[in-house]
């Protein structure tokens, strides 16, 4: 039923795509010399929108966060809710800006010395088809996210999608393929060498969307 509503809404939204000009005769535009002319505007009345089913990963559950622990998060489902294809990108940072922990951008999982030092941590997203199995640590490449728009790293980019410099491409709803507007995301966290369950620390992962190019 939800899909039927979505299709109906998409059809109505497609009618709502507008091209509009502030000038009633846009074909008459010429150089306007020293005098401002009328502006022209082209608008696509569709939205960039997406959602996620959970926003929290509590790393202190169970055994707690041991030094250099490498937990993998539960599954997150990310869905494109708008009428346009979107590119997702990621960045990570601390919630307070005065944290004792600093993000470490790369790790080589086979080399212990590359793991985060006392005051550092590592976070990396993995993207796959909706319903795919949970990845192992071998699925992650160790590139991580940086504080400037780096795409998730994965060799399997889900239906019809690819990793590009502009991010993970996530299509709008595709009739007949109800899961194609969704991806699953898993996060790998590498704890700092001194981490314990006593450290009260919040790390923020921002997922950003933009109209796909």
């Amino acid at each position, binding site marked *: 039923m939800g899909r039927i509503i979505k299709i109906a809404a998409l059809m109505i939204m497609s009618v709502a795509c507008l091209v509009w000009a502030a000038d009633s005769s846009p*074909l008459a535009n010429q150089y306007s010399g020293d005098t401002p002319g009328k502006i022209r505007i082209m608008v696509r009345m569709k939205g960039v929108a997406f959602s996620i089913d*959970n926003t929290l990963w509590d790393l202190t559950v169970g055994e707690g966060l041991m030094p250099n622990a490498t937990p993998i998060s539960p599954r997150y489902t990310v869905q494109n809710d708008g009428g346009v294809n979107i590119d997702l990108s990621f960045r990570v940072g601390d919630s307070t800006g005065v944290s004792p922990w600093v993000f470490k951008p790369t790790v080589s999982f086979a080399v212990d010395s590359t793991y985060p030092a006392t005051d550092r941590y590592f976070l990396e997203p993995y993207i796959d088809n909706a319903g795919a199995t949970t990845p192992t640590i071998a699925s992650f490449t160790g590139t991580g996210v940086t504080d400037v728009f780096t795409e998730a790293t994965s060799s399997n980019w889900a239906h019809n999608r690819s990793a590009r410099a502009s991010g993970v491409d996530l299509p709008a709803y595709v009739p007949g393929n109800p899961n194609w507007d969704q991806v699953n995301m898993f996060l790998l966290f590498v704890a700092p060498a001194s981490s314990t369950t006593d*450290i009260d620390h919040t790390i923020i992962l921002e997922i950003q969307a*933009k109209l796909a190019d």
Partner: protein
Amino acid sequence: MQKTQTKKPIPSLKAFIFVFLFLFSSGSWAKEFIGAEPAIIALQDIFPGEKYDIYELTGYQILIPNAIGSRSLYLLNVNPPEQVRPLKGYLPLPDTSWFRLEPDSLVVEPYDTGRVRFHIAVPAGDEYRNQAYQVEIHIVRRAYEKEKVGTTVGIVLGLNLEYFIETSPYPEPKAKPAGIIGVVPSQFFIRNPSFGKDTTLQFRVYNNDTLEHEYSLSVYIPPPQDTLSIRLDLPGSPGYEWIPEEKKTEWVKISKDKVKVKAGSSELVSVVARFPDLGVPWESLKNRGWEAVVAVVPDAGFSRFVRIKYFIVEQ
């Protein structure tokens, strides 16, 4: 500053907003959501030195629906130029103060829609004519609040809206264009062309870099898009249709496919524009317009483009 923006009814958008919210509120599984529209706004003929309140002029503003059942705080900013990776043909807006958001933070009640106006003010000066800028508006929903003691990863959702501003074209500016690359003029207008008649046009490519660059020149027609396949690509001009891709070389011929320009210098490029016989009476083409773009792509760095517009109107 946080405040709830006063709702302003827009009759022409009411039905759309209703559907938009209904669509998003139907997904009850989602615990976090962010959305904003329009996906694309492209403005042309913005005149340097003028101030524009786009909502006052056109009725358009940024809409931010809150599709979840809790109040949401949204923070907005224009990304600084060093963070923007612009679409080919555009330069990042050099100064974020030229594009002002009002408000830049707002609280939206559950299932309501936030509205954000924007104002454009490109400084006066001929160096700011013939420009094409990309504006990246970053919106983030501040929803995550620490719920537990201990180490947690919290996920917040954000999005970027990519809007485009082209300043008014002018063939004889008193100053060379600002920015690392420039074209003058940025648009040509061919009014009431005759079938098969050639029109020779010339534009100048400015290299404001400290290195010599070689620029590739080609006719570019964006791949077709419909309302179900909108992508980020060079937007067309209101009232114009793109010339057919397969016949673009009949319409536009560039004198050379590359041009070298020394650092701090400029070079002229000639283009022959022809309006081919479309196989229908000329009179039947009144009130139609066609455009093509000459892409100017350097060996490194930002690109620009020149629009060539043909239009047929009553004499």
